[in-house]
């Protein structure tokens, strides 16, 4: 039973964290939206399209940091066999894929008026598209095997190998010529954008980060319950071999 000790502690802690994180995510995003859409100036060159930045940049940061979290969880799962690590990686992948999708689509909507094109196959855009496919591949592998522990291992290895893409995305704007602008916030020497634009950007970034917490908890809980269901069904199949013979696959 010691294997379930950690999930039990997780359930207790997450019950406390869940309401607080949900409320603070809503507050940060509401404040972020107010500053993004009302209380910040248009850009002197980009006009009102600069407001796309306040969803695009936080979503892109989340795309990278969720992937980093998945890679870390996968490493922990493979090395220390922590029972929650695979569950955390599995629960986080669709959220990361969602943020990557938002970053790609809002980037496209920003690129059309400012660059004159929805899409270019340059280093930044292509590497983020690859990140999106890595997320999809991770989700597909998780469910690709009858034996779910094989899927978990395969997905964990994909997550670790694919982590090479994260620094490539981060530095793609410095290493290659690209339409995408270089970093203006997370750079040596401090941010180069106006204070009035930093406020909504950081509020939204904090809001997106805190949003990740309750959604991750809900998904991890669902996975823990799904495992319980699987174990209970298996126990019943083993306890009643007649049922198995009468209706193969009916109960499992």
């Amino acid at each position, binding site marked *: 039973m010691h294997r379930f000790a950690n999930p039990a502690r997780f359930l207790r802690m997450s019950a406390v964290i869940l309401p607080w994180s949900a409320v603070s995510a809503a507050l940060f995003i509401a404040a972020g939206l107010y500053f993004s859409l009302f209380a910040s100036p248009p850009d002197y060159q980009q006009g009102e399209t600069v407001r796309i930045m306040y969803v*695009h940049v936080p*979503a892109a940061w989340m795309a990278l940091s969720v992937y980093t979290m998945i890679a870390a969880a996968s490493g922990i799962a493979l090395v220390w066999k922590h029972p929650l690590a695979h569950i955390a990686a599995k629960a986080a992948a669709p959220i990361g894929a969602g943020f990557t999708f938002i970053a790609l689509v809002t980037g496209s909507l920003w690129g059309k008026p400012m660059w004159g094109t929805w899409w270019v196959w340059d280093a930044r855009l292509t590497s983020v598209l690859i990140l999106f496919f890595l997320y999809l591949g991770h989700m597909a592998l998780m469910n690709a095997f009858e034996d779910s522990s094989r899927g978990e291992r395969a997905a964990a290895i994909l997550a670790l190998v694919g982590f090479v893409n994260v620094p490539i995305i981060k530095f793609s704007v410095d290493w290659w010529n690209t339409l995408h602008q270089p970093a203006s916030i997370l750079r040596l020497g401090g941010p180069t954008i106006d204070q009035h634009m930093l406020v909504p950007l950081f509020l939204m970034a904090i809001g997106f980060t805190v949003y990740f917490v309750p959604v991750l908890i809900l998904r991890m809980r669902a996975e823990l319950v799904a495992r319980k269901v699987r174990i209970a069904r298996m126990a019943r199949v083993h306890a009643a071999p007649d049922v198995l013979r009468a209706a193969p696959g009916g109960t499992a």
Partner: protein
Amino acid sequence: MDTVSQYLAMGGYAGFVWPAYGIAAAVMIGLLAQSLSALRARENDLSALGEARDKTGPAER
């Protein structure tokens, strides 16, 4: 009213700014809703299993 429509026009970029916010909201709210309903579905599965066992005992059915 004029200022409202002027605001909504986003300096002529309404067709880019509003869809960007709309898609972000749709994805994030959709993910939250899907996560909630998945958790509820799994919990229903579990309680259904528990009830079935209470009625027939673990060795039958």
